[in-house]
């Protein structure tokens, strides 16, 4: 069975690397992006199975990325928001956009892996 492809988008190089190491060790194929624009291009070209997006990125934050990809059928892509922002209004905004998976930094790596499995599972069952 092919490895699942996960996009990691964050403007913090270190976090991207840390996630890449963790997720590759867990058996995922990783694609990375450092800003909103790269994230959009990556999603279009690489067609990942799941995207982990930092909310506050330059060249388009996570919400802008979702907006940009609306016509590309982004609704079907499982998305996890990873962010330093714990403010409720971001969570509410994310909810409005249909984003159910929201993780704040510092995150527990085990939780992140479980969340990824869960999100991929949801998609597989057609529930997402």
């Amino acid at each position, binding site marked *: 069975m092919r490895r699942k492809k996960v996009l990691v988008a964050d403007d913090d190089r270190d*976090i991207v690397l840390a996630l890449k190491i963790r997720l590759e060790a867990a058996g995922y194929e990783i694609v990375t992006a450092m800003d909103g624009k790269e994230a959009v291009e990556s999603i279009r070209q690489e067609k990942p199975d799941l995207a982990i997006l930092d909310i506050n990125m330059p060249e388009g934050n996570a919400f802008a990325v979702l907006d940009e990809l609306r016509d590309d059928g982004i609704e079907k892509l499982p998305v996890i928001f990873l962010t330093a922002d714990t403010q409720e209004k971001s969570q509410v905004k994310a909810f409005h956009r249909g984003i159910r998976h929201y993780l704040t*930094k510092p995150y527990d790596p085990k939780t992140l892996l479980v969340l990824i499995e869960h999100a991929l599972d949801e998609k597989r069952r057609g529930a997402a």
Partner: protein
Amino acid sequence: MTERSTRRSAGTVVPTGSVCTCESAAGGRKGNGRKNNAAANPDRNGRSDSDTTATNGSCRSNLDRARTRARREQADFLANLSHDLRSPLTSLREFVSIVEEGLAGPISDQQREYLGIALRNADAIAEMMEHLLVLTRMQQESFRLDRRRVNLAELFQDDTLPHEDRPKEKDVSFNVNVDPGLPDAYADPDRLLEAVRNLVDNAIKYSGDAVTITIEAAETRGSMLEIRVRDTGHGMDADTRRNLFVRSYRGSQAGRKMLGGLGLGLSIVKEIVDLHGGRIRVRSQINEGTEFRLTLPQFDAKRILTESLDEMWQAADERGGGFAFVHAGIKESQGALSPSTEEAVSLVRQVLRKTLGPDDILLPEDDAGGAVRFVLMVGKSSVTATVRRLLRTVEERLKMQSGTYVEWESGPTWLHSENFNHLKEMADVIFHQWCCAREGKDAA
């Protein structure tokens, strides 16, 4: 001429002829669930600083205003700082953790041990930062409690308290002893849980190999409730105990070491209790454990409504103009609320809190009979439009997602009047709808 920058002035109207042109330092009562703008509260007779005749600029309230502003700026600064520290801390923990788990190649036992120590300290920093962030957020202007009717027995059920990351070497047992028949509290359930959890965390930290933590609640005089959190831990000496809530305590070596750890967590507890208009007391003896007592107000619908009305009136008076009730409901034709509707209600509540301005009030919603009613008092008509839109969005989403049919019980109603007595009458009507359907005998 009063400056517009301060949101509140004293409830008492400053008579013409009074010379003081400073804004009053008073406004809003402590325990109204939000931060006061000023350091001082009106004294018992309702007099406040604005009643002091004084020459321009030398009123005490100028100093209070400056102090408040400084405190606010500091809170904002710390909140931003805490927020910015999260990313580097994440990377730090992650890379130490990655190496410790062997993901960067095999490591020796000693290396693993040392990395474990590094990780433990990184976690300690993360915890302190969390506390700092929480504390500073609560001290910011924009913070508001989300107070509701809370049954303490339901809140403190066994499974809401234990921790997954409890140190495994310790034997921790809980003893929750809260009578479900106690009167409900008027409190923000999440914040209250947070306060108790902080006390529990400290109890676990400052104890030996085994500790028993007891949580009890009881009615006390003055229509209050008292929550007691007791442990069989190390306890503290009289000096430490007396100075527990004093900001710049410089006590004994042992005391200071203890406080260094306890400090932020306890500050949060105190902040939460203060915001609720309650009190916190502590009893402790070395080697005999510690007991914290938190007092909070009981849920009293009439009192809440009356106090809210008074506050609303003060704010409207200061602004010039009236205010409005917004009374909207979400209901399911089936009867009881389904999980998706409950989720929607939770969302509505969250969004409403964010939408409301400093002078708006959201009363705890009533959820009797398969309907959830929101009652707001707002100072601006633009808010009603927002509420209407919000409820409509929620309704559409519920219909789409689950096919549940949501009925309006009554749409948002803008009632505007500059006549306080008229508003009081309308308030009475709403009050009866709001709580007497449930309470029956409390209708008065």
